[in-house]
């Protein structure tokens, strides 16, 4: 049963892609197919979760390109979490994208939805990877398959953004990640994800430190500074791409890789004995702060959100490198919590662009009167990023703070708290000013927000953010036993 569900997760987006390409001439049917694919995916994700833990873990082997190394898929708790997040948010984003692409008169819908579906295949393959080789292969494919989406505008700005996107992501993975993978293989003789790691006692802590640094810098999608420039550059993409891919799928694939490497390649015990892990923790902490400060000064709304994402991603990296059970749980939960909050923020940014034609933060004062739903959702999602009730972000930030406390890392703990304060300054002020200030352009200028697919999606994800506060236990149960 599980095997067929796993393969469905990989196949459904591919079928969707084929349908989108075939039905390209009939816009409504094509978009219907996209939506149906997304819903099927969410259903399969839910079924898989229901099955999870009941049937023994299974393995699908796609091939063995290098003797002794397989392209293989399986399912563990962390993968299950990522599958749940991505498969739930895909149909919602599809709904949103249908409204956005039509409302914003974007060209080439067929190729957009086709590449979108293909990116989801790669994301699912990453989530289900049974070893580091498989993970690496689909990690790279995800970069390539999102490139046409980032450059969807096909103008000079898109070209420039696309260049930075590829330069940073391909460059980091070829120069750092690929050698790290091959080196791990030569040290351990395997690349399987194994409980407790495969590098225990294979090399001195100093050597392992270098290897860990190669991994952390090589996984550019996790956006630790200075490997972060691609994320703001990717904001030239249409907003649904920024929402699902650059707030959820792609960036979460990055931190997911970091978590996988920390838990199943190094192993928490080995990681604790690697001094470099602490230094990299400090680098992540520095990234959290610097990115928050940049976000404060960024007037373009999407770019501000991008820097906020950089900051939040490094919470997860930091938690992974702390290598304590609590911190890892917090990190993994933050994947889900941040996903719902940040996708809501991007949805709002897109709706503001399409309905009010605004893209700068400084232009949003007083907008709350004509777009109350959007700005309300923006408010809730901002709370989610800050990590206060009634949003899911509360729990993950709580666990991460506890993790730093347990490790007696007071500086890191202070950093996390300071960063939460900063995020109030760069995020929460936006909806507050939108609602409270009325001296900006009045509501009479804008059309009121219609009950469109975009608004429905915004409400859904904002509701998700709150629901995760009320019912965090199913995510907690998944993430609290990642290591076994």
């Amino acid at each position, binding site marked *: 049963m599980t095997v067929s569900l796993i393969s469905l997760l990989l196949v459904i987006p591919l079928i969707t892609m084929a349908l989108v390409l075939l039905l390209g001439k009939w816009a409504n049917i094509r978009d219907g197919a996209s939506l149906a694919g997304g819903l099927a995916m969410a259903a399969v994700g839910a079924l898989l979760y229901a099955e999870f833990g009941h049937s023994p873990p299974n393995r699908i082997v796609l091939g063995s*390109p290098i003797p002794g190394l397989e392209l293989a898929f399986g399912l563990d708790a962390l993968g299950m979490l990522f599958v749940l997040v991505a498969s739930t948010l895909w149909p919602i984003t599809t709904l949103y994208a249908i409204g956005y692409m039509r409302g914003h008169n974007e060209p080439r819908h067929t190729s957009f939805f086709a590449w979108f579906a293909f990116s989801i295949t790669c994301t699912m393959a990453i989530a289900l990877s049974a070893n580091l080789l498989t993970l690496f*292969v689909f990690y790279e494919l995800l970069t390539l398959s999102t490139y046409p989406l980032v450059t969807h505008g096909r103008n000079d700005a898109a070209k420039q953004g696309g260049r930075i996107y590829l330069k940073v992501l391909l460059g980091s993975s070829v120069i750092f990640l*690929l*050698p790290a993978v091959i080196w791990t293989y030569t040290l351990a003789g395997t690349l399987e994800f194994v409980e407790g790691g495969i590098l225990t006692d294979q090399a001195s802590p100093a050597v392992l430190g270098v290897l860990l640094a190669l991994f952390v810098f090589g996984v550019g999608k996790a956006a630790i500074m200075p490997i972060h420039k691609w994320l703001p550059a990717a904001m030239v993409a249409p907003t649904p791409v920024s929402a699902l891919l650059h707030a959820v799928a792609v960036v979460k694939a990055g931190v997911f890789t970091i978590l996988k490497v920390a838990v199943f390649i190094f192993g928490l015990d080995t990681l604790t004995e690697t001094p470099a892990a602490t230094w990299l923790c400090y680098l992540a902490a520095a990234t959290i702060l610097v990115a928050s400060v940049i976000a404060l000064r960024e007037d373009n709304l999407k770019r501000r959100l991008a820097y906020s994402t950089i900051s939040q991603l490094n919470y997860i990296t930091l938690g992974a490198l702390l290598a304590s059970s609590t911190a890892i749980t917090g990190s993994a939960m933050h994947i889900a919590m941040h996903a719902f909050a940040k996708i809501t923020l991007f949805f709002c940014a897109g709706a503001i662009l399409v309905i009010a034609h605004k893209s700068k933060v400084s232009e949003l004062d007083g907008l709350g009167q004509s777009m109350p739903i959007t700005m309300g959702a923006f408010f809730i999602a901002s709370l989610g990023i800050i990590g206060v009730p009634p949003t899911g972000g509360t729990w993950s930030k709580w666990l991460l703070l506890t993790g730093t406390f347990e490790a007696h890392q007071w500086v890191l703990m202070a950093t996390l708290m300071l960063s939460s304060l900063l995020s109030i300054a760069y995020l929460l002020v936006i909806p507050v000013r939108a609602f409270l200030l009325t001296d900006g352009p009045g509501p009479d200028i804008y059309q009121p927000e219609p009950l469109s697919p975009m608004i429905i999606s915004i409400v859904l994800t904002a509701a998700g953010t709150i629901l995760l506060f009320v019912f965090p236990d199913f995510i907690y149960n998944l993430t609290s036993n990642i290591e076994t």
Partner: protein
Amino acid sequence: MTINNLAILHVILPLLAAPILLLVNRERVAFWITMAVSVAVLIFVSLLLIEVRANGPIYYFLGGWNPPLGIEYRIDLLSAFMLLIVATVATVTLPYAAVNQTTELESDAYVKFYVVWLISFGALLGLASSGDIFNIFVFLEISALSSYILIAMGRDKRALLASFQYLVVGTIGATFFLIGIGLLYAQTGTLNLLDLSNRVEELKDSPTAITAFCFLAAGILLKLAAFPLHGWIPNAYAYAPSSVSALFAGTATKIALYLLIRIIHTVFGIEFALGILPFDELIILLGLCGVFAGSIKAIFEDNLKRMFAYSSVAQVGYLMIGVGLLSASGLTATLVHVFNHALMKSAVFLALGAVIYRTGLVSIKDIAGLGTRMPLTMATIVIAGFSLIGLPATSGFISKWYLVTSVLEQDRWILAALILAGSLLAAIYVFRIIEAAWFNPPRHEVREAPLPLLVPLCLLAFANIYFGFDTRFSVGVSTAISQLVFLEPL
């Protein structure tokens, strides 16, 4: 007995068919005969590979004269592997030659083209089959002469100059090779490869043998278009008809590499090559220079055929690095890459041929907007390009994995980093093409290439992906060969 005859049948068949074409002198008939010969050779060669893999080398003594006096044809696994690559590339590119003739050849050259094509094909096959070094030289010259003609057949006036340039360089290379043979013959009195290898062992400190080795190596490096002896290759590939570029890109440099492996491993042995000169380090250094010089030239080149010719210089660099490591895993990496690179480059040049067929031109400006006009053709270039970069899910990734692994085996960190950096240079020129083809409005109102061109294209594109997942054949045979070479010197 029948099996042993197979060892020479694939060489004789094209050489015999060539004059028949001249007699027939009908274009369609000439094409179908050539096609039939190619397919037949492909079948023979596949049978050979299966047979050799199962039961070891096959011998054929020409005219019944026993070696070392007579000429011996000896097909071992390495030869069979090379033969298969040559035959496959030639068969796949042939339909192109037929369709492209009207656009790329003068009307009176149609039949002659097939005649010379067959001779060239036969010579390349003979090179990989013969166990006699003078016989190898003869085939080297036949293949060189026929390639001068094929290149000169290009419609562009500059094709003549390119051909002449290649002729001068090629002749120098051949002369070096011949001098090397002469010196060896003077010392040992034999021309048979196996016999030579036995006798060279006694000549370890002989300056003549060392000189002979240097001459042979220099001649081969010229043919291989190894840096800095690659000057002839950009023009030769750029102005030759596209099918010829595809054939040469997939086969000619590979055969030169085969000769290099033969000379190092079969004739002289690793100790000799290592003992007298730091030849291994030299090859690695030249290979690395080739990787960077070729890639950087490719980045700044606007003519796409020249761009990929420079890219070939870079790829030959990778092949040389693998050979220079002088380890079994290094040789495996090289052989895997020989196979994969043949797939990539023939795909690229055939796709460029399709572009020329439709637009008549092939500079980076002319492919503007073709991403939407000729989607399958451009997709093939992109897939093959990704394979050149060595991105995962393509065959190039497998090559790169093996090369980097074998480099790391010897703890050469800097070399590994440089190899990977070199592959990023390839990413720059591949994405230049992507940007040109998809980000600009079309310059030419054209349709997708016709079906006879598309079928081989799609096959090659698929092969580039397929051999990135299923490597039982490419890696399997390569590993078997390098184990044979390193465990029991031939």
